């Protein structure tokens, strides 16, 4: 009755690799961002910025390619199975998750005891993961808006419009700063929920691509 099996079909190697890239980029971006914001750690500011920019480009390419790959790569769409289908189906509405958003929230708030029926990604989980895409690109946009004014790019109007919209470059800086906290909070909750729902199984698969059998199979 415990956990379902965690098979490699749930997270193909390419996605495990991309998950690593995401993690390294986000951690590096948050750290170098803090250095740029407050220089609490006396390293070269040019170095911190170079790291920040590089990781941002890597992250943008990684996420974009992840989206493209989802149309090609086949992986499991359900929990504890080796049956595969196109990955994009994980990101569209699935019948297993229908009417389960509120129930999932109730479970995490201890308002119900049983875990809810779900597809590989639960309703709440799927929304949170999908939200990381616009948030990441939004962070890229706000970052470029902070960096760009002196660059005189032909596309500068695209960013200048955003700066005018929010009421100035300082407001854009604060939005970028709070955006980083949103990413940090997401990562905290994400890492916690993966750990509490079966640390060894989840972490083993997503980081080391190590399979673990379900509770039923283990006995």
């Amino acid at each position, binding site marked *: *009755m415990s956990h379902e099996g965690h098979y490699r079909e749930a997270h193909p190697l390419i996605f495990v690799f991309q998950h690593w890239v995401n993690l390294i980029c986000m951690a590096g971006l948050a750290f170098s961002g803090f250095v740029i914001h407050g220089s609490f750690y006396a390293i070269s500011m040019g170095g911190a910025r170079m790291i920040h920019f590089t990781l941002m480009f890597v992250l943008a390419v990684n996420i974009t390619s992840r989206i493209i790959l989802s149309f090609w790569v086949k992986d499991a769409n359900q929990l504890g199975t080796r049956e595969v289908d196109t990955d994009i189906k994980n990101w569209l509405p699935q019948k297993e998750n229908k009417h389960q958003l509120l*129930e999932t929230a109730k479970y*995490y708030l201890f308002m119900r005891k049983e875990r809810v*029926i779900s597809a590989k990604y639960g309703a709440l989980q799927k929304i949170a993961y999908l939200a990381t895409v616009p948030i990441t690109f939004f962070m890229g946009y706000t970052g470029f808006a902070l960096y760009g004014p002196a660059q005189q790019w032909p596309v500068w109007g695209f960013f200048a419009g955003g700066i005018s919209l929010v009421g*100035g*470059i*300082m407001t854009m800086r604060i939005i970028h*700063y709070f955006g980083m906290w949103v990413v940090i909070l997401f990562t905290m909750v994400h890492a916690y929920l993966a750990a509490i729902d079966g640390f060894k199984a989840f972490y083993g698969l997503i980081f080391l691509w190590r399979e673990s059998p379900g509770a039923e199979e283990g006995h």
Partner: protein
Amino acid sequence: MAQEMREGIYDLLAARGVSRRDFLKYCGSVAAMLGLSEMAAPQIAAAVEGGAKLQPAVWLDLGLCTGCTESTAQAGNPNVADIVLDLLSINYMETIMAAAGDQAEEAKAKTIEEGGYILIVEGTVMTGEGGNTLRIAGKTGMEVLKEAASKAAAIVAVGSCAVDGGWVRANPNPAGGKGVKDVAVELGFDKVPIINLPTCPVNPEWIVAVVIDVLMLGALENLAVLNLDELGRPKLIFGQTIHDNCPRRGHFENGEFVKQFGTVEEVKQFCLYEVGCKGPQTFTNCPKVRWNRKASWCVESGAPCIGCGNLNWVDNDAPFLKRMPNVGGVRPETIGTVLGGAAAAGLLVHGVASFSSGRAKGAPVETSKAYDKKKGGDK
């Protein structure tokens, strides 16, 4: 005739202790500010020399501290900039004009009637209490502006107050302070080109550059030569950040910062970023042009930039010695830390509850969805 004018201006310069060489050097620096090659210096000199065609101007004082006038007048040590500014025939300027009362108002009315003048506006447009928060000669400041702007060839808003309300419009803004551009449609002069020269106060060198543009490059006939950005500021003056041209930039790159005033880092003139310098988001060429006859400027004299060249600069940049302004009266760093701390505490409590309830070892999965059960029950 032209020769006489030329000699006239050099006599004027000589009388003020400025040699021809100094004059040409200055023209070279103006050329640089206008984005021209130094080869343009003789052209600029010729424009100034031949600038006997005085450009009529009206200088309006609205809600102001007169700092921009002080900055522009720079009394006590006349230089080449004064000669250029003398090319403006300022027919009305409350602070310096000899005339007073009806006589002064008549001079202004006459200039307005003739049209084609440059209107220089200093100070905030006070819209509060139906515009009655500022009254000049029996009229509201808004009426005065409307009247003066109607026939102007161009408006030059000098200083942050005239550009967007400056410090006067800082919260809670009881006087309803606004910039000239903000009321252009309401007061019916939105067709008149507006050139914005922010900072508090305005740097006279920028006014000189605009005057040269008008005299030499025919900016009034073809505004494109001013190369204004979307906020109406000349790009060549307001196109780069202070940070980009800061003499302390090397210390920034090396991670060498003043973290507190009165420390050895301050003596070493390290970067002021940590004590709130707004140079990275302030777009002016202060480090190049400098202030007070090129004597120095804020950062060079040891103070962090407070971002007076930004829009709504007081609300956006105060507290001046902090990196970012408060959000709802609270430091953004505090908000972020509290959110992060609250999330960590929440997750810790959740974790303890998950372990103590045995859920962490694996909770049973429902056999059918709650929704379906409810639906089935209804049946």
